[in-house]
């Protein structure tokens, strides 16, 4: 057993050098996906990191049946989403919109006045509220579509859904969000 496998002691991964190498690859490119899915639900970087860690830990324990990369990523997305929802339910509707400190604002690239910053944060809070109000099946496709601009096919692969279903759900989610935010947009800074 080489050093790579030894870095994952215990269970099947440490017994199999190739398995350890594959998990090392997943560890290099998948945590960001899990983290962003959790962030889309929790809106809190610390909690999102916790959830992503937990999801990756579970993936490690089940890695013997998740060797296929796409299967692994889909499984990870769904577990991270579910864990994040569980965490929200455990804590209740709460103070999760109040952190905001390190999150990028909508106008991060431009020079923001205090008014703009306040307005952007307020709008971000409203988007988060509207997103939280979506049904889970709409929310996950909306979050996945927002991550690195995944297209419908990629979202379908990650969510484990037919592409047509994803397309209709995505449209419905955006429409609901738009309707929910329509009355608020005029008071926020324009892009």
């Amino acid at each position, binding site marked *: 057993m080489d050093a790579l496998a030894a*870095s*994952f*002691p*215990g*269970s099947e991964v*440490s017994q199999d050098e190739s398995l350890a190498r594959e998990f090392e690859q997943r*560890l*290099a490119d998948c*945590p*960001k996906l899990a*983290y*962003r*899915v959790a*962030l*889309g639900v929790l*809106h809190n*970087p610390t909690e*999102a*990191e916790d959830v*992503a*860690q937990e999801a*990756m*830990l579970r993936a*490690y324990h089940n890695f013997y049946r998740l060797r296929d990369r796409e299967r692994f990523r889909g499984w990870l997305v769904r577990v991270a989403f579910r864990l994040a929802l569980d965490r929200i339910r455990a804590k209740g509707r709460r103070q999760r919109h109040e952190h905001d400190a390190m*999150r*990028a*604002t*909508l106008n991060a690239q431009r020079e923001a006045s205090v008014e703009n910053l306040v307005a952007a944060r307020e*709008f*971000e809070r*409203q*988007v*988060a509220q509207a*997103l939280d109000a979506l049904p889970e099946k709409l929310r996950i496709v*909306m*979050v996945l*579509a*927002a*991550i690195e*601009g995944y297209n419908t096919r990629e979202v379908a692969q990650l969510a484990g859904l037919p592409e047509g279903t994803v397309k209709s759900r995505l*449209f419905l989610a*955006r*429409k609901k*969000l*738009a*309707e929910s*935010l*329509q009355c608020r*947009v*005029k008071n*926020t800074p*324009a*892009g």
Partner: protein
Amino acid sequence: MSCEKYSGWLTDAALGELRAEREPELLAHASECDSCREALSHAREVGEFVDRGVEALVAGEPSPHFATNLRRRIAQETESLQSPWMAWAPIIAAALAITAVLAIMVAHSHVRSLPNPSLAPAGAPISALHEAATASPTSPQLARRTEGKHAPEPSTQARPRTTALPEIIVPKGQLSAAAQLSAAINSGRVDGNQLLAAQQEYQKPLEVQPVEIAPLEIPALDDATEKPANSIRF
């Protein structure tokens, strides 16, 4: 009227989901209608904000220590799994704690269950009281026992039996009265023998005198005059 028709298309158009044949119609109307043109522009702006807003919500990177922390968590879990007794440690600790609590409870209940005259149930045998009452007033054992018993201390009540002194079991709340009686007997103010005799007198069974009942005398009847008219003969 036509504005109402197109208002339902605006959001779909802004999100790029309006049916292809409807889009030219909507655009043609918007070019002539200021309010619909403004509404369409607003809907497009909202659509952009939706996408950008959600993208902003999911923008972020895990910390640089993510992989290190994950490896540490895996190692910790594996360690606990590799040493079986460590996995059982919480259970063993819980079992020890429960055992300790049970031992304390048993010890406590044992102390409570030791002889305690003052806690004797009502109706407990009081024959031993007779023994105390009939004992010689000069008996050193009884004198020692009754000495200073007018106000018995709780600690002495719970003391286990260590001598051959007769136990006096009295109903609850009557310990003080029994102690006073014992002291009175010891001092000679009350004659124990007399008390016992009186008690024995009360315990004598009642003598019931048999009642003598004289047999009934039935006079002989005259067949002709006393026989009922409707009697049946067999």
